[in-house]
Structures are given as C-alpha cells and as structure tokens.
C-alpha cells in the first residue's frame, strides 16, 4: 500500500519532469487561472477600500447657533452617539472651523481681507455625523431636525446633498454587482480554458493509458501519477503566480497609490499574504486535481 503510493508519487514526478510540453502548457494555464483569481482578490480589496472611503466621505453636518455654548454642543453630541444609526460624530469648534477656512482660502486675498474687516469669527461650530450605512442619513437628518433642538441647531446641512448620497448608494450597489458578475464570468472562462488544456494533454496520453491497462495496471495506479502531476503543476503554478504578484505589487503598489486614492497594492498583498497563499495553492492544486481526475475517467474503462 505504502509502496504503491510511493511509486505513484515517483511516477507522477517523472511525468512532470519529463513530459515537458504538456507540463509547460498546464503550468501556464494554471498560472493564468491563479492570477485571475488573485486579481479578483485585489479587485475586491480595492473596491471595498474605495467604497468605504466614498461612504465615509458622505456625512451630515449640524451647524449650531452663534450663541450655543460648547457645553451644550458636547451634551448634544452625547445624546446623539447612542442613536443606533450613528457611527461617529466629530466636533468642529468655531475656532477650528475658522482655522480650516483660512487655510483653505489663504491664497484668496479678497476673502482674507473680508475676514479681517469683520474682526470676529463668523463661522459656526458644527458636528460632522457619520452614519453606519449611507441609507441611514435621511433618518439621522430627521432626528436632528426635531423641534426640541431648534433652539440650539441653526441648520442641518443634509438636504443639499441628499441626491448625491442617494445616487452614491445606488452606485455602490451597482458597482458591487457588476464587479461580481464580471469576476465570476472571467473566472469561469479561465477555468474552462485550463480544464480543456489539461484534458488535451491527457488525451495525448490515451495510447499510454491503453498500454498501462494492458500490462495490468489498476485504475488507481494509472490515474495516480496524473493526479500527482496535477498537484505538482498546481504547486508550481501557484508558487510562480505568488512570486509574480509579489514583485508586481511591489513595483505597482507605490506607483498606483494616488490613482487608487491611497490604496497600496503591495501593502494589501503583504497584509493578506496568507489569504493569497491559500488562494493560489488552493486554486492551482484544486484545478490540477479536479481536471486530471475528470479528464482521465474516459480512458479508464476496462
């Protein structure tokens, strides 16, 4: 039993190392499929990152009346935070608002002059409120516009952006769906191509399989080496892709960072390195084993 397993493994390795043309063909298609799946992982990472950035950039701002004191505002914030839809609220004081405003318009002489003329700080203190989910902004805005707060709240800056928020929400759902469909479609095609290539290499071995049957080899002794060859191809295909992705993301990571609004491919790769390893070897070996087992069935009739 053990001897047979050892022989099957040796025969499989022999196939891998001698049958150069089919090994190369299988290796290349396996690497391509693994690469496709890895790209999906990157795509997933990028889309989650970008969408969460988009979602987080949407918010509702509450501007407080000129005469509202800081204590009142902080108390208001404390009341707001326990609301289930609210993820976070950031307090921007009058001074902070002025600072940011000046920094933003420091090159605009007209505005700088106007501020100096006024002498006092015309800006209002505000809370920037972040929802857990973009769909919840209307609810939060409703909460903020209650009569009870009318004394302290000057205005809720939400209506202006309601459209943007809603469109973004639709877009988010749409993008996710399209990405999913395209990804699954491409992955499916890649698997088909790989499967057919491997099937072809086994088809080329049909005479050999016939001879093995005639000299009394059992099915497992015939099939075993092909499966081992599939595993070895999967391991090498996975490894090849892994190394390729390492260098590719290392090269492209910093160069595409600003294009991807701060998403670094290389950081993503290194922080998810085990996920990538598992995906590459899983897909590579799985493809090799499944396609060789399925393809060889046809030639195993007695």
């Amino acid at each position, binding site marked *: 039993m053990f001897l047979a397993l050892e022989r099957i493994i040796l025969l499989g390795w022999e196939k891998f190392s001698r049958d150069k043309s089919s090994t190369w063909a299988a290796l290349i298609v396996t690497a391509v499929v693994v690469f496709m799946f890895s790209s999906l992982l990157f795509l997933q990472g990028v889309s989650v990152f970008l969408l969460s950035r988009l979602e987080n950039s949407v918010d509702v701002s509450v501007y407080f009346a000129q005469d509202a004191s800081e204590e009142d505002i902080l108390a208001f914030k404390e009341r707001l935070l326990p609301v289930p839809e609210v993820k976070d609220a950031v307090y921007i004081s009058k001074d902070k608002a002025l600072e940011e405003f000046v920094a933003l318009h420091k090159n605009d002489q007209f505005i700088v002059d106007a501020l100096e003329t006024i002498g006092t700080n015309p800006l209002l203190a505000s809370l920037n409120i972040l929802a857990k989910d973009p769909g919840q902004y209307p609810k939060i805005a409703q909460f903020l516009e209650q009569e009870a707060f009318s004394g302290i709240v000057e205005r809720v800056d939400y209506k202006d952006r309601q459209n943007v928020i809603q469109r973004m929400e639709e877009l988010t759902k749409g993008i996710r769906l399209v990405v999913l469909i395209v990804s699954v479609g491409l992955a499916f095609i890649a698997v088909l191509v790989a499967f057919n290539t491997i099937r072809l290499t086994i088809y080329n071995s049909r005479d050999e399989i016939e*001879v*093995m049957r*005639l000299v*009394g080899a059992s099915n497992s002794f015939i099939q075993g080496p092909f499966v081992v060859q599939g595993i070895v191809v999967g391991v090498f295909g996975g490894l090849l892709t892994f190394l390729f992705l390492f260098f590719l993301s290392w090269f492209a990571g910093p160069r595409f960072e600003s294009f991807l609004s701060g998403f670094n491919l290389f950081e993503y790769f290194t922080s998810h390195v085990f996920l990538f390893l598992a995906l590459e070897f899983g897909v590579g070996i799985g493809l090799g084993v499944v396609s060789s087992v399925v393809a060889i069935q046809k030639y195993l009739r007695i």
Partner: protein
Amino acid sequence: MIKFEKVSKIYLFETEPQSRRPPKSVAVEGVSFEIQTGEFVSLVGRSGAGKTTLLKLLLAEEKPTAGQIYFGKENVHEIERAKIPNLRRKIGVVFQDYKLLSAKTAYENVAYVMAVMGAPNQVIESDVHDVLEIVGLSERGHHFPAQLSGGEKQRVAIARALIHRPEVIIADEPTGNLDPYNTHDIIQLLIKIHDLGTTVILATHNKEVINHLGKRVLTLEQGRLIRDEQRGKFIL
C-alpha cells in the same frame, strides 16, 4: 487452460444514413477451440480475419457478442471490473507496434509491469536486469524507445511480456514491422520462452514463420475457424 466456446464478436458502429455498408461487422463467428498448458499455437489468417479480435476477447478488452471464454477455471467475461488487472497480469502481450511507453526508458518499461504488481525494488532490479539479458539488451536499458531500432523495441516488448513470468504469452503479429533477420531473432526468442515452459499464442500472417515452426496452427477465415492442425502449414 484456455477455452473458447462458440465465440462470436459483432462490432456495431454508426454509419451515415446513405451509406451502403451495414452498420455492423462480424469479426469472429462461432469459434471454438482449446489450448493446453505449455502449447505453442499459431493463429493464422489474412488481415481482417479476426486474429486480433480473438486475442482482445481473451484479454477482456472486448466483450463477446455470444459464447464463453475460459482462462483456467475463470470465465473471462464474468470477472469483475476491478479484478481484470489480475487476469492481465497472468498474460504477457506483445504487439506488432510494440506499444512501449515512449516517455520511459527500456529498463523502466520493463520495470513498470513489476511495479504495477507491487514487487519490491530489489527484486525488480535484478529481474529486469536478467530479462534484458535474455533478450540481448542489457546494454540498452537506459535508452528511450525512440533511440532503439524496431527489432530492439520488439525485444524490449518481449522482455516486458516476460518479466512477471506469466502463464501465457500472446504475440499479435510481433514480426509484422520487422525485416527477416529481426523476424528470425524474435521467433527464436519466442521458441526459447516456450521451451522454458510458457504457453505461447502467436498471431501472424507470415508464411515462412509458420512453416519453420512446425507447431499447431489455427487458421481463421472471415471470422471462422476453418482449420486446426497439430503440425500445421501455412495454407490460405
């Protein structure tokens, strides 16, 4: 030890609708004979007479349309699928086109048969060495089939058929692709194997070979057994 009882084999296949050919071909029809342990039997007949089909039926590669085939006490076509390799291990086969594994060396081709049967490595090593010596190829063990001549390839094939000491050796036109010198060598080899106690079944349409052998001859014509003679001549 081998017995064919009223064996027929009809191949059915698809033809185009307008084709005149019938969608079947009768390869073997009502063939009965028996072969004893230790015999040397030649199977003679024109190309298409059904020689290969008879051998395939014995190897359980094809199923008979009618009739029974026995190997020893076993009815060949009642053997379970999983046990068929065991039947084949009792029979060594040599083909006209050698059927060597092209990706393996001569040595590995022969060793493969023993590996299949689970023989220990040391036994494989010494046996393969001995058998290659018997067929006169001890120097060529590390060569791949593509590096060997036709006669050499056929001798590797015979070594492979011999290695596991089968009870029967079947040779299906083993000299069909060889020149007279190699033909002579291969036939001498088969005679030697027979003298060592193995049953040999040789299918051929080579007149000189048959007349030279002077052993039992079964003559087939269009799938029928028309002659069975103890010291047969080639008559068609």
